[in-house]
Each structure stands twice: as structure tokens, then as C-alpha cells.
């Protein structure tokens, strides 16, 4: 280590190794945390239409319209290893032609530092709720759940489901609205 450059080289390499060890320590302190919180979902209006679906193989498919309220407190999830949360609302149901259908209706990105109390009212779905066929009409059991993807500073990205879901039923006929 006779020259300035070789001293600087070993100093910098040592700092980087120590930094990598610190990052691993940060990951280890939060690796086994349970990141689920209770979530409250209410549905205010449900409507169904039968329209042309140009992305599907058949002539007409069912299109659902759901208006909902979500409230949850996400503060316990944020710790020093969480950079952001990607929230998404899923509708899960089964029809005669498919045993399991899951459709994402709405999503949101919550960054670290944003307000963590989620209190949204009368939200319309962001994405189309198309069914693969005509299975939404008179479907009695459609479950809405809010899940999130935790994006960490270091480590695994887990998919966590919030505890709390809402079941709803679609009306029997098209173009009519059912209020809850």
C-alpha cells in the first residue's frame, strides 16, 4: 500500500464490502415480518352490460361496472426496508366455463412518505371488467379483495393479501343497476 491510489483503492473496496453487509443486515431484520393489515371494502353500485369485446374470440361478452369504497391503514407495513407499495383490487369468481377467474379492477402506487391512510369513496374501476364469455350475469358470488406488492430496498418482493374481502352478486339482467 505504498501509493495514494492503492490506499484509496483498498479503502473504497472495504467500504463497499461493509455497505453490502449493512444492506444484508437491513434485509434480515425485516425478512420475516407479516405484512398483512385489515382492509374494509364496500360496494355501492353494480351494473352489467353485454357488449362487443374486440379482444376476445366471441361476439359479445359480459362487462361489469362496480363502484366501491376502500378504507385501510397501511402504516404498519412501512418500515426501513419498504420503498413503495403497489396496491391492486382483484375480483375473483367462477363461472360455468371457467373454474377460476381473477380480474384486476383498480390499482394504486403508494410511495414511502405518501399518506398511508387509505380512505377512498365512490371509486370507479380503472380497468374493464370483461368476462371470458357470459358468466357475470346472475353470478351470485364475486369476491373483491385488496392485495399489495411490497417493493423493498433489499430482498424479496412479497405479494400480500389484505385480510378482509367483500362478496357481491351481479344483477340478473343487462343494463340495469343494483344499488347496495
Amino acid at each position, binding site marked *: *500500500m505504498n501509493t495514494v491510489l492503492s*490506499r484509496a483503492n483498498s*479503502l473504497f473496496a472495504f467500504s463497499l464490502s461493509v*455497505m453490502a453487509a449493512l444492506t444484508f443486515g437491513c434485509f434480515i431484520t425485516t425478512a420475516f415480518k407479516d405484512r398483512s393489515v385489515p382492509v374494509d371494502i364496500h360496494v355501492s353500485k353494480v351494473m352489467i352490460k353485454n357488449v362487443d369485446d374486440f379482444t376476445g374470440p366471441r361476439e359479445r361478452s359480459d362487462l361489469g361496472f362496480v363502484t366501491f369504497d376502500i378504507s385501510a391503514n397501511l402504516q404498519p407495513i412501512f*418500515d426501513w426496508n419498504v420503498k413503495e407499495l403497489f396496491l391492486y383490487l382483484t375480483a375473483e369468481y367462477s363461472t360455468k366455463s371457467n373454474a377460476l377467474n381473477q380480474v384486476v379492477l383498480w390499482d394504486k402506487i403508494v410511495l414511502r412518505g405518501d399518506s398511508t391512510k387509505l380512505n377512498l369513496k365512490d371509486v370507479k374501476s380503472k380497468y374493464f371488467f370483461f368476462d371470458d364469455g357470459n358468466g357475470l350475469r346472475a353470478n351470485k358470488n364475486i369476491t373483491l379483495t385488496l392485495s399489495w406488492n411490497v417493493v423493498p430496498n433489499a430482498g424479496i418482493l412479497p405479494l400480500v393479501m389484505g385480510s378482509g374481502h367483500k362478496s357481491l352478486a351481479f344483477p340478473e339482467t343487462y343494463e340495469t343497476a343494483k344499488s347496495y
Partner: protein
Amino acid sequence: MLSSFKTIPTHMDYKGQKLAEQIFQGIILVSAVIGFIYGLSIQQFGWTVYIMLGGFTVSCLLTLPPWPMYRKNPLSWQPAVPETSGENRDKPQESQKKKKHK
């Protein structure tokens, strides 16, 4: 301009190098521990990184330039052995070099 950088003396003697290495390893480890505990207590990893960078800067300032504490044990060179009469001209230059090292 590069030649004037090369004439700045940057060497340390061997005990000084060992001392410099111990100093920067110690400073960086201590700042890593402090940074980890502080970041864990306020739950922000950014502060851990800032404290580490601070420790890195302090150890850069302390160990990169050749401070006099790293030159306490200089090597004692043997005096030059005169071989031919041509060496007599080199001797005064060598003794001047020795003075610069001290």
C-alpha cells in the same frame, strides 16, 4: 501539471501503512455499526448510508495524505558503497535525497 502532482511526496513507511490500514478499517466499521443502529431506530435506511459516507470521508482525510504520524519509523538505508571514481559525483546527490525523506 501532471508532473507537479507526481513530485508531491505520498509515501509512508511500513509501520505507517499498517497504522493507516488499521485506522481506516476501524473508522469504517465503527461508522457502519453506528449507522446501522441509528437507521434501525428511526426506520430509515437512507441515514445508514449517510453515516457510512461520513465515515468514509473522515477515513479518506485521515489515511490518504501522508501525515507525519505515518513516517515515524523510516527505513535506515545503508550508505552507498563507492565502486569507482564516477560514484563520487552521485554521493552528494544521494545525501540530499536522504534529507528530503526525513
